[in-house]
C-alpha cells in the first residue's frame, strides 16, 4: 500500500504531558505531547517486555513505560532504566518513530520517511472523534450525502439546515475511527449529535 498520512486524533484531545493510543495502517502507535508541546508518534511497544507505551506517562520531554519505567527521549532512544540507575542505556534500545504532524487541529501520522505535508482540510473546525465497529461502506450507506474515501465530505442536515462536514477516516483493528470536523457555521452541539447519530445508523446497517 502507498504510504500516506492518516489522521489519528484531534489536537484538542491531546494536551501537553499526555499520551494516547493511535494507529497507522495496522500499526499500533503511542502518540504523545511533551511538556513543551512537542508531538511524537512511536511504535506502541516497549522493547523491554512488549508493554504498550500508550499506557505510559509523560515527564518533561520524555515518555516512560508504565511497566518498568524505562524512559525514552527524542527520536525514541532509551535514556534511563530505573532498575539500573547508573547505567547508560545502549543506543540500540530504541522505539521506532513515525512521522507526526499537526495541521488544522488534526494530528496526522505517517511512516518516518514520509515527505510533504498532510492534506489540508479547510472551511471546517475540529469537532470530535468517534469509534465505530462497522466498515466504511456502512458509513457511506448510512449517509449518502458523504463522498470520498480517506476524507469524507458532504453537506448534511442538522436541525433542519444544511452544514458542511468533514470526516477523516482511520482504520483500526476494531473497525473505524472517524475524526469529525464541522462547518464554521454549524452549532457544535448539533454537529456532535449528528456524528453520534451517524455512528448508530452505520452500525445498524451492519446489524441489519
Amino acid at each position, binding site marked *: 500500500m502507498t504510504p500516506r498520512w492518516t489522521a489519528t486524533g484531534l489536537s484538542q484531545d491531546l494536551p501537553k504531558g499526555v499520551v494516547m493510543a493511535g494507529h497507522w495502517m495496522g500499526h499500533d502507535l503511542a502518540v504523545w505531547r511533551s511538556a513543551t508541546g512537542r508531538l511524537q508518534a512511536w511504535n506502541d511497544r516497549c522493547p523491554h517486555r*512488549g*508493554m*504498550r507505551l500508550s499506557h505510559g506517562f509523560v515527564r518533561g520531554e520524555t515518555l516512560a513505560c508504565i511497566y*518498568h519505567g524505562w524512559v525514552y527521549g527524542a527520536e525514541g532512544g532509551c535514556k534511563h532504566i530505573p532498575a*539500573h540507575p547508573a547505567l547508560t542505556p545502549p543506543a540500540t534500545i530504541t522505539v521506532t518513530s513515525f512521522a507526526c504532524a499537526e495541521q488544522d487541529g488534526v494530528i496526522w501520522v505517517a511512516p518516518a520517511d514520509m515527505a510533504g505535508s498532510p492534506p489540508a482540510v479547510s472551511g471546517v473546525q475540529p469537532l470530535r472523534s468517534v469509534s465505530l465497529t462497522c466498515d466504511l461502506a456502512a458509513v457511506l450507506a448510512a449517509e449518502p450525502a458523504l463522498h470520498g474515501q480517506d476524507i469524507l465530505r458532504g453537506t448534511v442536515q442538522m436541525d433542519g439546515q444544511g452544514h458542511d462536514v468533514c470526516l477523516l477516516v482511520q482504520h483500526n483493528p476494531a473497525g473505524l475511527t472517524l475524526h469529525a470536523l464541522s462547518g464554521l457555521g454549524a452549532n457544535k452541539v448539533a454537529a456532535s449529535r449528528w456524528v453520534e447519530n451517524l455512528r448508530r445508523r452505520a452500525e445498524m446497517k451492519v446489524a441489519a
Partner: protein
Amino acid sequence: MIAQQVLNEWYPVAMAAQIRAGQRRVTQLLGQPITVDLQKGAIVVTGQGGALHVTEAYGHVWACPGAPAHDLFPIPEASEPGRRLVDVGVVRVKCSPLRAVENFLDIAHFPFVHTDVLGAEPHTEVNRYEVQIREDSDEVWATKVTFYQPQAAKSSEGGIVTQYMYRVAAPTAAVLYKTCPNRTDAWDVIGIFVQPLSEELCDVWPWMALYDDVSPQAELIAFQQMIFLQDRSILENQIPRLLPLDPGMEIPTQADLTSIAYRRWLKKRGLTYGAQMVAA
C-alpha cells in the same frame, strides 16, 4: 497438537474448598473443556477423553491431562503450624499463562505498577541477585533478592528493605518467600498458581501461607486482589500476548535474570504452551 511434556505436568483447575462445598466447576485446561466436581466425596476432573489425574494441595485442585512426569511440587511451609493459609480466589487474565508467571517473578515493576505499596520512586534499583536452575528438583530459583518497599504486606507499618526468594516449581506455578513483617526467623510464602485455559487466556489463583494473626481474612484477600488487578492491567497490554522464548524479540537486563532463566528452562524442557518460538 500439544506436546506430551506439556500434558504430563500438573495444573491448578479449581479452589478445593469450593468443589468440596458442592460447587461444580465447568472450565478449560490447555484449550480443552473439563469439569471439576465431587463424586462420592472425591474430587474428580473429567475431560473429553475421560478422567484426568487429580491431586489436592495448597487449597487447590491440580490436574494432569497426560501421564504425570512427577509428583506435584512440595511446599513444606504449607504444613508448618501457626501459618495462616489463604486462598485468594481467582483473577482471569487475557494473557499467556507464562507471561502471568513471569510477571510474578519480576521486582523491577514494583515502583511503577504497585506504586507506594510494593515499591516507590526513587527506590527503583534492582541489586544483583543469584539465579540458578536446580538440577535435583528441576526448579528455577532466585535468591538474595532485596527491594525497598513502602508497604510490603498487609501487616507492614512502614517502609522496609524486603528480602525475597523466588521459585518456579512448575511451568505455570511459582512460589515466593519474602521477609515476614511479624517474624525475623521465618518467611511469608505466596504462591501463584496459573490455570492455562488457552495459550492466551488464564485463571490466576494466588495463595498465601503467612504468619499474621491480626489482619482479617477479607483484608488479606483484598490486599492480594488489589496487587493482582494492578498486574492484570499490564499483562493484558503486552505485545505479543504469547511469551517470546527466542532472544531478539525483547531486551532483558541484569534485573531480569529470573525471567531469562525461566524462559531458558521452559525452552529446554519443551514447555512451550503459551510461548512464541520465532520472532513475528
